[in-house]
Each structure stands twice: as C-alpha cells, then as structure tokens.
C-alpha cells in the first residue's frame, strides 16, 4: 500500500477524540482535504462538512464517517491524585485493567491501576470483573494539586495505542472504528465528482448516532454511503456462524444491522460493481450494531442509505486489527461505485 495512505491511517488512528471531543480528528481531516473542497464547515454539534460541487446537477451524495472513538472521561480526581472515570461508548470492562492511557488536553500519560496478582484472591482472578466505576487511573501524581491545570473533570481519556503493521498485511491500532472510515471518505473526497458531494464527518456516533441525526438534517442527500469499521469475529473461540465478518473477506455490506435495513437497490449495485471489477466483498452476517446510516436514512422525507465497512477485529477495545487488502478494496469499490453513478470510467 502507498506510504501516503498508511500515514493517513496512522495519523487518524493515533489522534485522540472520544465522543464530544472530535476537534483533533477534524483538524487532521481539514488539512488532508485542503484544496479538495469548496467549503468546509462545522455545525452546532461539531460535525464537519466537506462540500464539493453543491450546484452541480445529479443526485446529492453524502459520504459519511464518524470521527469519535470509544474511550473514557474523567469523573473525579481524588485527594491522592488518582482519576475516576466513566465510559463514552460501549467498552468491555474486562479490557480496561492495566492499559496505558492518555489524559486531557496535554495527553498526560497514565495507567489504569490494577492490583498486583499476588494480592488477588483466586476468586477475584477467576470470577470477578472490575467495573469501570471501581477503577482509577494513575498519572504519577502525589495529590490532586499535582494535576491542577493539567487534568479536569470531563477531560477525555484515550488509549495510548500506537499504529503499526504486522504479520501478513495487518494494521494494528486503536479506533479503526471509525478512523478507517474517515480515511476511506477522505480518499473519496480527493476525487472530483460530477455530482454534488456532501462529506459528513460526524460526531457522537458512539453514544447514539447523535451527530448524523442533525447533520443529515442540515444537508439532506438523495443517496448516502456510511463507511465504517465493523465487527470481525473470525477468531478461535467464536463459532463460524457468529463471526459476523472476516478479515481478508473484503468490504462489508450491511443488509440489516440493529438499526436499519439498507437500501436494497444501492446495495445490489455495489455487489454488481464488485463483481464487475473482480473485488471481494462480504455481507455483515449478524443483524446487530448500528451506524450513522440509520439516522441519515430517516432524515426528513427519507434517504436511500447504505453502510459499507472495513472489517476490524477487537473493535471497541484498546487495540484493533484490520487488513490492508480490505482497506484498499473498500476504497476501490466505492471509487468504482461513485464513478458508475457518474457514468464515468474510473
């Protein structure tokens, strides 16, 4: 894969942006798309719109990905200088203990405190899950005064996971849900299309597709493509019929998830385009989860909406995995699809 593409993924996944704190990702995207947009604007809920050719004829096409990631936020600072936290978005409590994190505006390094194994009873080790409300973060402070001005209640806490490559074409990092989508949409927005394009980088998806709901009100498209990082469970302990998607299987097309049924005609067209170009693809094979597309679909008088995703293992955890080929095939499929829509060759 081109180095430029890899660097975009690195930058986006290492950026810190829990729900409601999406500015860092927005600014990266704004810089990446400089010169490719007629207008870039943020709305009241901080969605970022990248508008291209809004006066052109043809269907208004929305390309959407959400900027926020799951993470934690500070709820209380103890006199001893430890931080209590709450969750923003769905995270499994079992994955939190002992993880390195970054806190607040200065990216203060911290560790989610865990009692040494020597001090735990067998029962604690084998059966007990430490709930998020019982955790503290250790930022190496002696007292609350040590962190004055550096940490405040409400500050975001993100996982300190760096991006990397390993194995046979795998990328490892945090927040592929949905920075992979942000990267794909960025690549699509760098192309000039003969129809109006609304790039919508949305906020607050992880706490209930809030941004998309108001964003699709502001600019209601005819057609919308939401690009996501979605669940892949092609791992040992999971039964074949519950793997949802698999890495290397190609772009994921959702028929039904927990929030919607996608537009049948557009999805069929995506499959035809994939077949015509010899691209792999797969269905999402469990009607669970939800994306911004569910909110876009029901904006005003209704929108023909689909969701396309890069499969990702271990999403909503401190570290996730995607496959290079799935990412590239997603960009290619959507490029070919939009070209077909435009009656262009791509």
């Amino acid at each position, binding site marked *: 894969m081109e180095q430029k593409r890899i660097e975009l993924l690195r930058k986006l996944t290492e950026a810190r942006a829990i729900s409601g704190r999406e500015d860092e990702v927005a600014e990266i995207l704004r810089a990446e798309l400089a010169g490719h947009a007629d207008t870039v604007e943020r709305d009241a809920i901080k969605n970022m719109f990248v508008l291209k050719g809004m006066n052109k004829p043809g269907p208004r096409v929305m390309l959407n990905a959400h900027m926020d990631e799951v993470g934690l936020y500070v709820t209380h600072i103890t006199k001893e200088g430890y931080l209590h936290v709450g969750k923003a978005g769905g995270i499994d409590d079992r994955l939190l203990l002992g993880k390195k994190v970054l806190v607040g505006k200065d990216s203060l390094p911290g560790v989610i405190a865990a009692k040494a194994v020597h001090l735990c009873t067998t029962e604690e080790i084998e059966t007990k899950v430490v709930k998020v409300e019982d955790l503290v973060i250790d930022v190496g402070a002696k007292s609350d005064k040590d962190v004055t001005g550096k940490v405040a209640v409400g500050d975001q806490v993100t996982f300190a996971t760096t991006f990397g490559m390993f194995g046979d074409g795998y990328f490892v990092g945090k927040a592929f849900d949905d920075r992979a989508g942000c990267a794909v949409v960025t690549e699509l927005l760098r192309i000039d299309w003969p129809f109006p394009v609304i790039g919508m980088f949305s906020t607050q998806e992880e706490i209930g597709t809030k941004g998309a709901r108001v964003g699709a009100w502001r600019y209601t498209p005819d057609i919308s493509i939401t690009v996501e990082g979605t669940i892949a469970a092609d791992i040992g302990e999971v039964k074949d*019929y519950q793997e949802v998607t698999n890495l290397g299987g190609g772009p994921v097309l959702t028929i*039904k998830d927990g929030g*919607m*049924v996608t537009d049948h005609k557009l999805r069929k067209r995506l499959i035809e385009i994939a077949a015509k170009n010899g691209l792999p693809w797969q*269905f999402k*094979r*469990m*009607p669970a989860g939800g994306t911004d597309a569910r909110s876009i679909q029901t904006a005003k008088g209704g929108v023909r909406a689909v969701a396309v995703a890069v499969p990702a293992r271990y999403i909503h955890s401190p570290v996730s995995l995607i496959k290079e080929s799935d990412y590239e095939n997603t960009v290619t499929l959507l490029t070919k699809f939009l070209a077909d829509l435009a009656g262009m060759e791509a």
Partner: protein
Amino acid sequence: MDRLIRTLTQAWGPTSYEEGVRNVITAELSSLHLENSVDTLGNLVYRIPCAGRQKLLLSAHMDQIGIIVTYVDKNGFLRFGAVGGLDPYKVLGQRVLFANGKVGVIAVETKERKTLEHLSLDRLFVDIGATSQVDALKHVGVGDFAVFVGEPVEVGTRVTGVALDDRIGCYILMKTLKAVAGKKLGYEIYAMFSVQEEIGIKGAKVGAWGVQPDLAIALDVTMCGDTPESAILDIGLGKGPAIKVKDAGMIATPVVRDLLIAAAKKHKIPFQLEVLQGGTTDAAAIQTNAAGVPSGVISVPDRYVHSASEMVDMGDVENCVKLLSAVLLS
C-alpha cells in the same frame, strides 16, 4: 372470511420488502381513483383533498416480522437473526417462507431441549430440506429474508393467521376509504400504508415529514390480557376497538384520544381503553414529527401478536372501520 384478509396476509412482505403488499393495496383501491404516491422508503400515501380542513394522517404498516439468514452451514442448515421482535418460543417449530417460495422449518439444537427457559435465537436454525451447503445455496443465501407460513382460518367469529399485525390495520384503512368514498369529509385525508414499522417505525417517520399533518391516527394491533394466566392487560377480544392511552413509545395526545372516545360514544360503538406496557406504533414517530403532531391510535385487539397464529375478532375489526369512518365523516 373476506377474501381481502387472505390476500393481504398472504402477501410476502417482511420489513423493507413491502412491494407485494403495496401492489395488493393499489390494485384493490384503484377503483376509488384517489391521488397517491410512493416516497423514498416506499410508503404508499393516498390523498383525499379537502381545502381549508386540517390534514389528518392515517397510518397502517405494510411490513411484517420475519427472519434474515446469517449463515449457511456445511450441512445446509441456516442460522438466522430477527427482523422485528421475535420471541424464540413463538418461532420454534414454525415454517417460514422465502421470497422465492422456498419453505423451511425452524428447529432447535437438540442438546438445548432441557434448557428451553433460556432459549435464544442463536440456538435455533432453519432446515430447508437441503442435503448439503451446496444444495442449500441453490435456493437461499446469507441476507435472504423469510416470513411465517400460514393461511388465515376462521374460528368462530374470529380469524387466526400470520401477519394480522398489521395487515388487519391495512384492511381497516382500506375498508374505511371505501366506506367514505365520495362523501363529505371533515378533514383532508392522507391515508398512509407505511413501511419498516417493525424495526423502529422508520417509514412513519419519513412519511410524516412528507405529509406534515395537523393530526394523526395510526391503525395497529394491540396485545390481549384475556388468555389463561396472561400478564395483566385490560384488553380482550370482542370488546371493541382499543383506543390507546399509552404504550412503551408514546402517550396518545389527549385531544386525539378524546376525539376517538367521543366518536365511539356518539355512534354507540363499543370500545376499550388501552394502556400497553410494551411495543409502540407508527403514531409514536408521527407525534414527534417537526414541531409535533397530535396523535392517537385505534388498536385492534390481537392475541398472540408476532406469532404464526395471531387472532383477531371480526366484530372488533368491523367496529374499527365504523369508528374510523365516523371520525372522517365528522
């Protein structure tokens, strides 16, 4: 039994595949020569203009619950997920029908038999009589939808069958439109046959935006509390239309509720008041459209909702038509 009930309930129409139902309705209503349109999501809306009157939106949903195939195993058995609210106990042992006519039977992993109190959909599978994965894939694939199989049957004054939720609402709306055809109405009528109610009242939400009504009435089924050892619910078959006070998704706007009660009293139509703990209807989505729409519901009492053998009372159905007609003519 009215043949239209058979035609409507036998039309194949799980959520998002409502075209077959829409075709039945447009064919049946074509003789009324009403202006109609189909929106982006597939809602079918008939309009009876009446200048200067309030816009009244009526809504009955066309879609029915179903299943979606998620996996075809090496022996040709299908795993599936829910389209709408599926109770594993009501699904087990039923036959299902795919769009291409293929029929399957829903069975359970045998080793689960002793733990049926924890039954979940992922312990169930569909057997379409395939001899192998290759054989199965000739007929069905991942993502295919299916619905319960079942002809409607008359049992006394009642009818039992599949998809009475909400084809019986469609039936009532169609019968009402025919009953009031050509008469002077008190409202400008928008009669919507909506899509995608069962997965989160999607159709009604965008349909309401398209119409921008001044008030709304949904026609849908409600559950009953008149069966052995049932949960407490003060609704029974044969006691008349249920006028909704509240369900899990809305409190009926009092002005609409009272309008329905007044019409029932005036025309001596029996009715019951509905306070439902679970479930909701199109009216919940319409009520919060734009700056708000006063909304209520005429519910048809329906036993065994979301099963392959729902049951309604035809006296209730006829009284629903009478009640709705009375409102339109007022």
